[in-house]
């Protein structure tokens, strides 16, 4: 079946126990665009994002990635999808038994047929993208929260994925670093044509990186539109979310 966009969620429902988190989410992310998902805390943004690489299966509804319906696939069949779609986790999720450099090397070692030198070069390359050239030898326990965020970003970039899912990439970073990460997200998208989905609370960086924005509330996407459309919205809830009144 033909599906529009690179990622297409159709009528997603997902509950945890009694709690209905997603209640009919429809969302299409076009090839090569940056889609920002806004929404209050606990509205299910992370849950929605995890549907897009099959980490969570919906109770009902479909998720298409690059034309393939993934919600019924098993772990092994998802392998190929996940090589294309990398994720930056909200809590970084670095392997704490490995150094930063080993963390970045891990997906490369598993999936890319690189020599040891090639591996080292690639690790240096992505670490320098996030300003962490000299920090490869440190363990996650030894670096700050912001550095963990950047290391996690480097790890996601390592395999040059076609699509990146960012779960709050700039929360907890200082303004300068926030700017840098925003620019990085833009750069990756422009230069490599990467499709990006960014979940964030941070309105400023949302507008800095977005081609389009979506607003998740009460388990549904209430609004989708470009930056201009979002700024000019007449939707009360979204207006309140953006301006705090």
């Amino acid at each position: 079946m033909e599906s529009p966009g690179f990622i297409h969620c159709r009528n997603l429902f997902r509950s945890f126990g009694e709690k209905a988190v997603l209640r009919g989410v429809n969302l299409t992310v076009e090839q090569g665009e940056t889609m920002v998902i806004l929404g209050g805390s606990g509205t299910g943004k992370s849950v929605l994002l995890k549907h897009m690489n099959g980490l969570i299966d919906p109770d009902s509804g479909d998720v298409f990635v690059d034309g393939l319906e993934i919600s019924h696939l098993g772990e092994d069949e998802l392998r190929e999808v996940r090589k294309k779609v990398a994720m930056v986790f909200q809590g970084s999720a670095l392997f704490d038994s490995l150094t930063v450099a080993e963390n970045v090397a891990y997906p490369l070692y598993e999936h890319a047929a690189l020599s040891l030198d090639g591996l080292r070069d690639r690790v240096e390359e992505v670490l320098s993208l996030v300003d962490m050239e000299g920090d490869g030898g440190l363990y996650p326990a030894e670096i700050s929260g912001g550095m963990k965020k950047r290391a996690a970003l480097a790890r996601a970039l390592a395999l040059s994925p076609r699509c990146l899912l960012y779960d709050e990439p700039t929360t907890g970073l200082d303004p300068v670093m926030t700017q840098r990460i925003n620019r990085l997200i833009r750069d990756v998208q422009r230069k490599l044509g990467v499709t990006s989905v960014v979940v964030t609370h941070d309105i400023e960086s949302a507008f800095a990186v977005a081609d389009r924005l979506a607003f998740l509330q009460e388990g549904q996407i209430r609004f989708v539109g470009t930056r201009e459309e979002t700024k000019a919205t007449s939707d009360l809830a979204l207006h309140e979310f953006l301006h705090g009144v």
Partner: protein
Amino acid sequence: MEELAHRWSFRGLQPVMLIGELLGGIGLLVYEVLRCIRRRWEGSLIMAQMEHIGVRSLSIVILTAVFTGMVLALQMGSYLSRFGARPYVGRILALTMLRELGPVLTGLVIAGRVGSGITAELGSMNVTEQIDAMRSMGINPVQKLVFPRMVALMVMLPLLTVLADFVGVLGGLFTSVLELNVSGSFFLRSIIQFMRFGDLFSGLGKSFFFAFSIAMIACYNGLQAEGGADGVGRATTKTVVMSSITILVSDFFLTKLFLLL
């Protein structure tokens, strides 16, 4: 009234459902682990786990076995003397160690020391989303985490059991010679003449099964742990309780089985 009945029947069914869920979950994990046999075996991961699981458990296993052997000889010696059966102490002790206490005690010690460690490690990886991160890279956590631990346990536990058998008998020899005035060479000769390979193998068969059970229970509880440090703590306790019960109960049935063979 109807509501009451409904609630009661629900309560009554809940433990059954929980056990069903547990067995189902572990069954699924077993299936996934068995599928890994046909994939790439990662020697370095397995070796690291063997070191972690086996080598670092040596001292506690030896300590347990030595003192068990010593106390057994002491108890049996004083009791057997009443029948004038003191010369049998070596043979009875060896039989008890090889067939029963070696595998069971080593299993229990390893369940407590290694099983809990596995659950804590995988559990904290799970609550910090490291397992999800692995999956998100297209890397199978069962293959990378569960399989090496299972193989390492299934190799190391039988080896540790053999060691425990040996050391336990030595402990018994020590007390027999010092306390019971049984000659050392007679003690050993009587054991060697009397024991059959079947006795050793029945103990080893048990320890294979125990190793597999501990690995599956520990990994399952770890991968299921949620809710932060608190959840990891509860999962760890659950592993120790569940694997100890499994060892003690299955030991009975395995003994029955091996006696039939």
